[in-house]
């Protein structure tokens, strides 16, 4: 069963008097254990699509299913709960909080769940991404690659079903990018999760199981 499914998803924006169609009837799915990469020129609707897969945005028309459940009409707070329990995010700019240690950054998504302590899992994840000696470092003390690995650990702390990566290698050099992609490939299998990435990076495309190309809001098949 697919983790995340978009059925005939349409997204329209009202800009001034004009209606812009960012996504035109897109069908998309991602399964456990696969890495799907969305490519396309800028303005093709990649970010809109990723936001919709990540339940950060809702379609104007069409359905969104997460683990078989229709979440299209969920309220803002219900969608937040879904993201917290089932989705992990990795951003191009890492988006770590500078005043928190690496471990605290990893714990962040679950920080408000005071009854479950994710400290052990956070430490274990940091070990797994090779940062066992950086647990109490703060982001400004870490290199770009290290920061992105903290971000990956953060995306996994809630044991998600799908991990979304927006240009995960965009700010990294070739070698560091390759390490990060190796990491993601390993985690995809060990955690049995779906990874959906958006990129311009050729290197990332090589690591993908499947490529989805967006052109003008439609999937090019």
């Amino acid at each position: 069963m697919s983790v995340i499914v978009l059925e005939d998803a349409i997204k329209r924006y009202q800009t001034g008097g004009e209606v812009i169609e960012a996504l035109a009837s897109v069908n998309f799915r991602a399964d456990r254990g696969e890495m799907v990469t969305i490519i396309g020129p800028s303005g093709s609707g990649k970010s809109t699509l990723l936001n919709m897969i990540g339940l950060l945005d809702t379609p104007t028309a069409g359905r969104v299913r997460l683990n078989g459940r229709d979440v299209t009409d969920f309220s803002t707070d219900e969608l937040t709960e879904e993201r917290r329990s089932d989705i992990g995010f990795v951003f191009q700019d890492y988006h770590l909080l500078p005043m928190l240690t690496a471990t605290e950054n990893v714990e962040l998504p679950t920080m408000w769940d005071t009854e479950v302590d994710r400290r052990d899992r956070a430490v274990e994840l940091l070990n797994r991404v090779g940062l066992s000696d950086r647990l109490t470092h703060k982001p400004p003390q870490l290199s770009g690659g290290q920061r992105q690995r903290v971000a990956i650990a953060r995306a996994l702390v809630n044991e998600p079903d799908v991990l979304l990566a927006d240009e995960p290698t965009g700010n990294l050099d070739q070698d560091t990018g390759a390490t990060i992609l190796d990491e993601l490939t390993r985690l995809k299998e060990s955690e049995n999760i779906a990874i959906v990435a958006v990129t311009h990076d050729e290197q990332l495309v090589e690591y993908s199981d499947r490529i989805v190309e967006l052109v003008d809001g439609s999937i090019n098949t």
Partner: protein
Amino acid sequence: MSRRHPLRRFPSALMAWRNLGRNRVRTALATLGILIGVVAIASLGMATAAIQQQATANLEGLSNEVTVSAGPDNPNDGISAEQVDDIERLAGDATVVPERSNVTTLSARNGAETRVRVTALTKADTMYNISRGRISNRFRSGALLSQADARRLGIEIGDPVTYDGKLYRIQGILSSSQGLGGQRRVLVLPLSAMSDQNYYDSVTVLAEPGQSVEALTADIESSFNTADEDIIRVRNFASVQQNVGSFLGTLRLGLLGIGSISLVVASVAILNVMLMSTVERRGEIGVLRAVGITRGEVLRMILTEAVFLGVIGGVLGVVVSAGIGVVLFEFLVGSPLNAFRWQSVQYLLYGMVFAVAASSISGLYPAWKAANERPVEALRD
């Protein structure tokens, strides 16, 4: 294994604390604003409490006094001996002190001169406190002089003064504080010094504890005066006390109002600081929302930051105000520890409550704004 932060069980508090630590200067300035507001409220409040205590202490000496003098319809030029007898009968246990008064010029050996009020009475000990010397309880001879005049004329105990051609030796120097209505400059002589006067200029009735000054005033007044004839004039200081009390109440409200304005200014500063810091952290808050932190949790986090500013500023303000209060009470009342009586210490509490309330209210809008930002938009830039 890394050590767990003590605030870990309170994630909003932990995050708020860390966020405040990021821009220490801004945090310090916002805190300073609150501190000043609290100090303004608390120290102005404590100042009025000190003034109130001082005024109450001064008026206490007068609160048992009823003063009787001749009214406009009195056939005589004062209170007659028979009238004094009547007053004594009405007064019951109260001490009745008739006195005659005049004005004279005292001159010292060095040629210095000063005009003073002269009052002649018996029972001087019930009316005056002395700082030096003594008052004989019959007070048939000798004289008492106010401190200011004694100093000016260089008069010491045992020195003679002349009134109406007769010599009196100074027995005692009056203490400088005789209450608000006390005679500041007066020469007190035995009643015999003015035996040429037939009438008394005034009669002071000193009520015993438990005796109602108001009732005494009314009794005396009704037994002499009729609806259209004011034979005597009867005054007590209860109404003065009331007036002073209500004046101080107004003063306190006015001062607290001024103090509150500074706290309002401080809370606008907090509003500004919180708005700035949430705008700066827009992307970060977007990330929080994206990774599953709810709107309520973001709201609580930012509100907690504002409350922390209020609490820190409030606590520091209370500490500073307590210090100011001690100094105020030392100077105005003379007993610094009175600053910690409820009458004045309550203003520390008000200052604290105001600080926390004002900062929470100021934090509300920025917190609400940040929490309701759509993560998609916050993450875009």
